[in-house]
């Protein structure tokens, strides 16, 4: 018996200063955009005690699930077990760790806040999105350096192809704050990110979902990069470091191009010779499904 292990993109979302749609992202966000305000997207309820990355993750999760037709006014429109989460972020909880440490050193353990405990665990972005929206499939946090966002897409596709779940919400998000800026030598991080809904082709067909892109081959390697195999999306320099969100942003931009009628493949690349490896992923227009 041969099973269809093709994985498609059936939803996408973007939140960056200067871009809140995949089309705007694909065209290149303008400089001078206002910072993302999470309460404007998901309301104030439940945001207290959540770090910036988790709040941005909530907004992207809601937006991508809605875009895929999986989230209605009464919650999920599919079985909770059928949705997994794979999130990518390198800087997500660095602010919580640094702040808790400052308190410990300057006061004692009694000065720390118990509300910081969940945020001290780096997987808080992935698990919080699952808790808020009731996503009970596999839940994975990828913190894998520059290639992390494309790696997250790869792992989401892998668990779908293995039959662990029908669909996965992929999140790529990086917050901007003082700790991150010191780590980046004064440069800023994007303070936003992107999300995708990946789905097995049969699962997408069964619910008559609109296919927005088709995933092609992925590779992580330190070897010599090959030639470009499709259109490349470049992150505008004014947005700052995208780090763990970079790969997911490129996939979301590809969806933006395909939505606008582009039919050629898109080649996403993250990491370079100076990093521990580089990752490549090809995305194809919907008719390739």
């Amino acid at each position, binding site marked *: 018996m041969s099973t269809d292990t093709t994985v498609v993109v059936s939803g996408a979302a973007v939140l960056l200063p200067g871009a809140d749609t995949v089309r705007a992202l694909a065209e290149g966000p303008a400089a001078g955009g206002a910072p993302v305000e999470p309460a404007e997207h998901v309301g104030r309820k439940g945001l207290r005690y959540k770090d910036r990355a988790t709040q941005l993750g909530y907004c992207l999760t809601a937006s991508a699930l809605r875009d895929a037709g999986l989230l209605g006014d009464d919650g999920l429109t599919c079985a909770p077990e059928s949705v997994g989460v794979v999130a990518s972020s390198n*800087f997500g909880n660095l602010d919580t760790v*640094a702040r808790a440490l400052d308190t410990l050193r300057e006061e004692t353990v009694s000065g720390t806040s118990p509300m910081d405990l*969940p945020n001290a665990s780096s997987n808080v972005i992935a698990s919080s999105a699952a808790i808020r929206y009731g996503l009970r499939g*596999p*839940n994975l946090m990828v913190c894998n350096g520059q290639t992390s966002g494309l790696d997250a897409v790869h792992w989401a596709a892998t668990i779908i*192809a*293995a039959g662990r779940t029908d669909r996965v919400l992929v999140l790529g998000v990086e917050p901007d704050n003082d*700790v991150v800026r010191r780590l980046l030598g004064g440069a800023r991080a994007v303070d936003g990110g992107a999300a995708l809904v990946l789905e097995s082709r049969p699962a997408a067909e069964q619910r008559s979902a609109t296919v927005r892109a088709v995933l092609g081959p992925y590779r992580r390697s330190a070897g010599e990069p090959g030639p470009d195999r499709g259109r490349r999306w470049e992150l505008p320099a004014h947005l700052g470091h995208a780090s763990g969100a970079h790969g997911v942003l490129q996939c979301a931009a590809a969806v933006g191009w395909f939505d606008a009628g582009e039919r050629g493949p898109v080649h996403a690349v993250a990491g370079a010779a100076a990093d521990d*490896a580089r990752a490549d992923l090809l995305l194809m227009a919907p008719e390739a499904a």
Partner: protein
Amino acid sequence: MTMSPIIGMGAVAATGSGVDELFENLCRGRSGRAELRGFDRTRFRAQHAYEVDNRPVPGQDVPGRATELLLDAVGQAAADAGLGEDLSGIPVLVGTGLRELRSLELWWRDGSPFADSGLHFGTGLRERFNADVTHTFSNACSASLYALALGSDLLHQESEDAPDTVIVAGVDVLTESMYGLLERVHPQPPDRVRPFDRNRTGVLMGDGAAAIVLRRTERDAPQVHGRLRGVAVNCDAYHVTAPSPEGIAEAMRSAHRMAGVKPSDVDLVMLHGTGTLLNDEAEATALADVLGDSASGPLMTAVKSMTGHTSGASGLINLIVGVRALNEGRVPPTVGLDDPVEEAAPFRFVTGEAAAGSGRLNVAQLNAFGFGGINAVAIVEGSR
């Protein structure tokens, strides 16, 4: 069901370095508990942990210890499997709760050098082993069993470029922030890890790393320590720190289904058993429910009573100790367990001395549950 042979193993924890020493010390009931070795003790109410005693100058912490322990365990496992020191092209999947956040802490407060490329383990694995298909998963305390699930999926892909060998690892060392915040939520400072005991005071962290080499088939394998029959992963989607017995039970049932075993087939359960106030009851409730009439059948133990909570490493440490126990017919005890909680009343805990199983031990269940309600349960069999 897909069966993956385990052809190499490596481990290090407070209780020993190398699988042989670790297993022997655990069987002797030796605990790695000691006074905090690398932090300023005046900042904390709790004073103990289960650390690997490898700092160059006692009392002075140094960056990069998580990477060092990881490279040690991966090196052991690769050598055991005959892979040598060049791991380029071989996927290395690392599960961790805290990445290199301890190095970030030492940079933030004490000025040691650090760059964002040092947060994950790909950089260190590339330098030592030329490894480039490296993945760091930060999945709290179930991280290494989550990594095991992904490694198994990778091996059994229906694709021409599916690898035939995968290395799965887990690692964590204490961070000041996590040690402090964990202590902060306990009414009285935890003194030692006493899993499932009524009088336990809570959880304390431990340092540790573990690695295994998995193969798609047994062809040309230098040896087979055991076989992975299946790993199930899910998410409670319930609470950021409190576990859900229903979510845990579902992960266990799903693991049994994937592995093709019935509750009565399970001979040994390597419990997650953190000694945390809420968790042990949740684990016991779920396990008693899933095992049903067979709840008194398998031997059970929680080695965190001697290693402390090694977080991201703990699932794979359980796997390695469990495989060894199946093959040798000896199970390390749960130290400090005198009076089990009511939820665990039906269980056959190993206490006091290492138990030599009365019959053959064939199948072990391994549990790992993490913050955010992320559950992973694996089923392995020995090679005896």
